[in-house]
């Protein structure tokens, strides 16, 4: 595959709506990460999947945020009842394993009006 693919590239939604962001990792990559990058800020860790292990959800900011991953393939990040402060670029990354370098997607720009 070409690399980590994220969709949509841009999403505009109204406050209170739910959104789903998708990430297709590089084939064979067992590790998958979600990060959030607010304007002018660094990358904020959200959640990490490693193979079939329980995900590390320690970075999810509230219970409105959840993510799933089917095996070692696609992952979806769901934000329920979106708020304006959820506006950010959501980045997905994958790697062969935990200690290998991360390959990033181009991100989804989420704007909550």
């Amino acid at each position, binding site marked *: 595959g070409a*690399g980590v693919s994220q969709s949509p590239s841009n999403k505009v939604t109204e406050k209170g709506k739910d959104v789903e962001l998708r990430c297709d990792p590089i084939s064979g990559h067992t590790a998958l990460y979600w990060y959030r990058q607010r304007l002018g800020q660094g990358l904020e*860790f959200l959640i990490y999947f490693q193979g079939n292990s329980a995900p*590390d959800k320690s970075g999810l900011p509230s219970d409105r945020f959840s993510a799933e991953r089917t095996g070692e393939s696609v992952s979806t990040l769901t934000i329920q009842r979106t708020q304006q402060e959820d506006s950010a670029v959501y980045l997905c990354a994958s790697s062969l394993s935990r200690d290998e370098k991360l390959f*990033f*997607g181009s991100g989804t720009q989420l704007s909550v009006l």
Partner: protein
Amino acid sequence: AQRVTQPEKLLSVFKGAPVELKCNYSYSGSPELFWYVQYSRQRLQLLLRHISRESIKGFTADLNKGETSFHLKKPFAQEEDSAMYYCALSEGGSQGNLIFGKGTKLSVKP
């Protein structure tokens, strides 16, 4: 708690000048440190990691455990080095997540 600090939001130098992007970390164990770079309109990508002890695009970084630092250096900056640079820390062991600093924007002027 583990933390990565990049004290400079913006660093501006002239072409040919030396450059040092600072990174300090807070972690009690044996961390793995990385530098990631994002050029304009490109994806974030790995520049180098301390365990490789390599030089990429003329950049080097040495892990100083005594000063808990992992500064990125290049003796002669080029215009194409202009980008956002992020320092990151991995805890090692069974933990997985990579903790990033807030980034430093490097601007190399002609």
